[in-house]
């Protein structure tokens, strides 16, 4: 019997999904999870919008809660102009949140653990908010990199710092989400692998001892649930903050 080894990274491997058609169209298993997330989101809306009751039921409450949460986030962070970006922020928030959550289920792919995915989302937010900035303010948007109320001789030092910090936004935005999701799933896999290793090497004693990594994984499940919600919230609120900067320039 070959001793089991911990393959903590195999879970992130990309294959093609949806059978022959998916292979032909390069539709990956992570796209399957994205599709599932989108279907879950649309399904929540379809169910929540069935009754349209004055006193909402469970699904309607869920939809209204999500709606008002993101809407308030937009208005509080960006201002009244934020309502223009509300559908966009909502789509990103819901996509990441549901993607994080279904990634927690066994056999589901956590697509937010792929840097290509999170970087693409972050670059979109970065390019979009920069575009909004130039669209709103024209070339005066360059003033954003000149902090006001600073003595002139400091500007040659501060302007490059501002530009670098601005350009690093998509990196920090994408790496934060990617690293959180990857780390959580790797830890899960590692502790689960410990259980197999303990059982294989110590027999019955090892089977009992593997209660410890199991307990750790249970605790980790709660933590990952928190991280899944928190990282989606962080991504959405940072998107709002960048849009605020683009609209208000301060």
């Amino acid at each position, binding site marked *: 019997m070959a001793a089991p080894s911990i393959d903590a990274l195999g879970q*992130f491997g990309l294959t093609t999904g949806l059978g022959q058609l998916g292979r032909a169209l390069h539709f990956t298993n992570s796209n399957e999870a994205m599709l599932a997330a989108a279907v879950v989101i649309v399904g929540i809306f379809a169910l929540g919008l069935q009754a349209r009751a004055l006193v909402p039921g469970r699904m309607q409450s869920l939809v209204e809660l999500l709606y008002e949460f993101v809407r308030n986030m937009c208005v509080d962070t960006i201002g009244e102009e934020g309502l223009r970006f509300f559908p966009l922020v909502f789509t990103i928030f819901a996509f990441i949140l549901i993607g994080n959550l279904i990634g927690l289920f066994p056999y589901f792919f956590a697509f937010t653990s792929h840097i290509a995915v999170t970087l693409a989302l972050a670059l979109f937010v970065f390019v979009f908010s920069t575009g909004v900035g130039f669209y709103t303010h024209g070339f005066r948007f360059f003033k954003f990199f000149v902090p006001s109320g600073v003595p002139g001789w400091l500007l040659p030092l501060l302007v490059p710092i501002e530009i670098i910090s601005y350009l690093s936004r998509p990196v920090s935005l994408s790496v934060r989400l*990617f690293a959180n999701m*990857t780390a959580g799933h790797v830890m899960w896999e590692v502790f689960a692998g410990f259980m197999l290793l303990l059982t294989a090497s110590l027999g019955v004693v090892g089977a009992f001892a593997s209660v410890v990594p199991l307990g750790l994984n249970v605790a980790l499940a709660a933590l990952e649930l928190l991280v899944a919600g928190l990282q989606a919230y962080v991504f959405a609120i940072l998107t709002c903050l960048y849009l605020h900067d683009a609209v208000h320039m301060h």
Partner: protein
Amino acid sequence: MRRLSTAILLALAPSAAFADTMPQMDFQNPLTLDQVGWMAVILVVLYLLLSRWGLPQVGKVLESRAAVIAADLAAARQAKKEADDAVAALNATIAQARAVAQAEVAKAVNDAKAKAAAEAATLAAALEAKLEAAEAQIATARAAALAAIRPVAAEAANTILLKLTGAPPAEDQLAPRLDAALAARKVA
């Protein structure tokens, strides 16, 4: 770019030690970028569905609820105002009725007092008239009685003098004496 992102990952992510074997870093695999293309398609469809259908519908539900609540509140305020007005009208009516009743009572009391005073005055006048009539009667009777005294006294004096003297007194001597005696007794 790839080398840069790998370096950043090594610096930031604890799992970056696995960078060589990480499927996330395997940009040689065409699927790594293909998934981004499909994500764009899925996200565009999701965005269109949410922005055209889902979110406006939820907004409508919330708006209609807010409208119903506002209408109910307005109706409740209207009802309260009507109730307040009704109470005010009731209080005004009660005050008016009380004033009218008090005026009626005062008028009745005054009328009764006036009537009683008038009756008392009439009665007093009637009694006065009777008293005067009685006094007049008494005076007449007294005068008649007094008038009757002189002939009786004159006859008595005549008779007495006739018996004493045997002769009737002279009429002219008797009359002044009789008058003086009656005057002394204040009956003339």
